[in-house]
């Protein structure tokens, strides 16, 4: 069944079952592989994307529900907050294996877009849905604070 979805500012036609999770459509039909599969049940956050500016676990979001909504993936990040997050992530060498980091960056970006000066508690709440098995959490926290400072400058 042909569906039209808006991903990273572009209207895209895909011929898939509307029940297909957005994750697989993004990765396999559109070739945007920065968004990762981790658990398939919205527990780990590796598949986090933005839908209308909010975080969404794409592994548990049927693509049929995306009509008329704007999907952003790691490849389409462009906001000032997103750029600050990515810069801070690189400067602090947050990553280890890196597999979860697209999702972490997507969650951190929404946090800073909505709350440019988050406290540690705000960070804990916003990032609680993103698992990092390498446990880079201390640097994730530091990078969010660094990005926040950069946004205030």
């Amino acid at each position, binding site marked *: 069944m042909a569906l039209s979805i808006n991903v990273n500012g572009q209207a895209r036609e895909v011929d898939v079952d509307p029940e297909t999770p957005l994750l697989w459509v993004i990765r*396999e039909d559109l070739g945007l592989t920065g968004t990762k599969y*981790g658990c398939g*049940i919205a527990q780990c956050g590796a598949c986090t994307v933005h839908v209308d500016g909010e975080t969404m676990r794409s592994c548990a979001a049927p693509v049929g529900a995306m009509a008329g909504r704007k999907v952003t993936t790691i490849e389409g990040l462009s906001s000032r907050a997103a750029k600050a997050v990515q810069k801070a992530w690189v400067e602090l*060498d947050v*990553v*280890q294996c890196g597999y979860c980091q697209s999702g972490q*960056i997507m969650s951190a970006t929404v946090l800073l877009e909505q709350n440019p000066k988050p406290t540690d508690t705000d960070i804990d709440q916003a990032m609680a849905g993103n698992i990092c098995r390498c*446990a*880079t959490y201390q640097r994730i926290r530091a990078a969010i604070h660094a990005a926040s400072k950069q946004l205030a400058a």
Partner: protein
Amino acid sequence: MHPLMQQANNSPAQRNALAKALGMPPVAEVGAGVTRRAVLAGGAGTGLLIAVGGFVPLTAFAAAPGVEGAATGPLAPNQFVRVGTDNLVTIVCKHHEMGQGNATGLASMAADELDADWALVRTEFAPADAKLYANLAFGGMQGTGGSSAIANSYLQMRTAGATARAMLVAAAADAWKVPASEVKASNSVLSHASGKRATYGEMAAAAAKQAPPANPVLKTPAQFTLMGKADATPRVDSAEKCNGTAMYTIDVKLPGLLTAVIAWPPSFGAKLVSFDAADAKKVKGVTDVVQVPEGVAVVGKGTWAVLQGRRALKVVWDEAESGKLDSDALLAQYKAQAATAGKPFARPAKDAPKMAPATKTIEAVYEFPFLAHATMEPMNCVAWLHDGMLETWSGHQFPTFDHMFASKAAGLPMEKVKLHTLLSGGSFGRRANPYSDFTIAAVNVAKAIDGRAPVRLQYSREDDMGAGLYRPMYVHAVKAGIDAQGRIAGWQHTVVGQSIVAGTAMASMIKDGIDPTSVEGVSPTPYTLPMISADLHTPTLAVRPLWWRSVGNTHTAYVMETMMDELARAAGKDPLVFRLALLDKSDRAAGVLKLAADKAGWGKPTRAGLAQGIAMHESFGSFVAQVAEVSMKNGKVKVERVVCAVDCGVAVNPDVIKAQMEGCIGFALGALYYGEIEVKNGRAAQRNFDTYKALRIYEMPKVEVYIVPSTVAPTGVGEPGVPPLAPAVANAIAKLGGPKVRRLPFARAGIVTA
């Protein structure tokens, strides 16, 4: 030293036995850990290994199997370094990058000796070629593990860089008609006092014509410009991992690529009886439903399609035997076994002075669960049979095993099998795999569809977590006494648990019935404990065992270091003082303990309500001590701060070392709180992150890492930060008046965490 590394220190005959088991040619080594290979004239690639000087010469290398990627350069003096006319330096990494930062480390070592500008350094992964890229700590085998990447490569990568530097300098000296001693090399630029100047790229072609020096001079640690410098070597892989372009196995794109999932045996050892593929084949996108040795593979276009297809598949399994295994029953069996004599692995020296009788005795039985690695990227491998050859793409952490097993599964000679090694989304031991489970299965699927298309075998999270290959369950029974003077008066110790290496090509590590990975940390230990009498029982199970970040030390450190605290308490001594008295033969172990205690303010927690616990453990040649500050509020335990001291010899990349300690601490804390795979009715009860919980950001303590300055050759950091964490936390809980936790994880022991 880890047994994997001891393997390398064994006799050449033993090493060659391993090489033979792997189907590899015999291995020769020369001094300083640099394996050198010279190829006879006209015999490029035929690979006679002889122990004489020189890396692989350029001409021979050009004829050898190609290195991945576009990195060529006229200057290619050995298998590790390229200098291109574009002025980029490419370092070929023989080790697998799964987050631990070794690509950055390997590149730093070569680039430092090369005096390269770090901003111009690139890395790429070596092909599977054990002749060129063997782990010098693993004998003839190419592979990454045992926290050995930096340790075994230290002189090799430095020599590789120094060779290229010497050739660039010699070329500049020739071109400028000045003595080589007057040519300066710094930040990828050659210069002379006369004002002559050339970049490495400009001099690369001329340098390639120079003869590689037989023994290039290496820097002294004081001359290092990159190694040991705090901000000199940012990670080589940060940018690509922050913008979604980093390439993992799951991201491989090939023309016509199909995806496969397998209906795996539901219980460990279940046998396939029959299957009905009719409904599965009706699912749109499913192209094939085929039997493979592992189970039934559903192949098709897209992951969702094949997952749906598998759901519709009907399979009948014989679980008459396999459905019986139960981890609680197993634990009871292990505990009973722990009360009986096993195979001895430590006995008091015959001439040991007679000990005073114990006035206080502590008896404890410890229980450790199965643990899954739960890498963020579930296991996967792409296999493509075409044109009489096989190509695979995966996180091949043990390329030599994967190469051998892929060749066997495909029925093709090894030279017709080409492995492409990609980044791994974590491993923690899972991809360092003497069974090559994901590689073999992918090849079997590719064969079952007659090589019609490249196929990516993907494990779902549930497949991955239910596949076995766990850190085995262990039980320790310990009885130790304290005499009237507060000294240890005796120590009886029994360990029960599966052997990780038995039945694999690494089984030669077992000596006199003892798998060293079952007991490392009890014996050997840096503590002076001549009174230890210890036995091992090694049961076998249908659940395959595997190493899990820090291997045997995951459980031995917990037992040893909580016992230390209990014995210190019984002796009425401070736990730090009590330990130091037993470390008269290990300055490095004592050193990290003192440093961690000093930086943590031992005995003076940051605030009221916190208790400090301390632990120290040696693993893989590195020493780590940690002080955990723990609170207990409304019965809920919270680890608030961990101060970590590490001595890993020369600190090649201090920030990577800190990152590994932080990561080890979070990884270990998650396992301490929640980690357990229970086996019920023969199958894993926990199959995803909803029940097999991982540490989350709000549970991460504040971590401070201090590195002991050292000029000793480096040892690893990927694992040694794990072992001390759990006992340090447990010791703090005991100090807070909490229970002595002897059943892990906390969730099982009734300890609630915040």
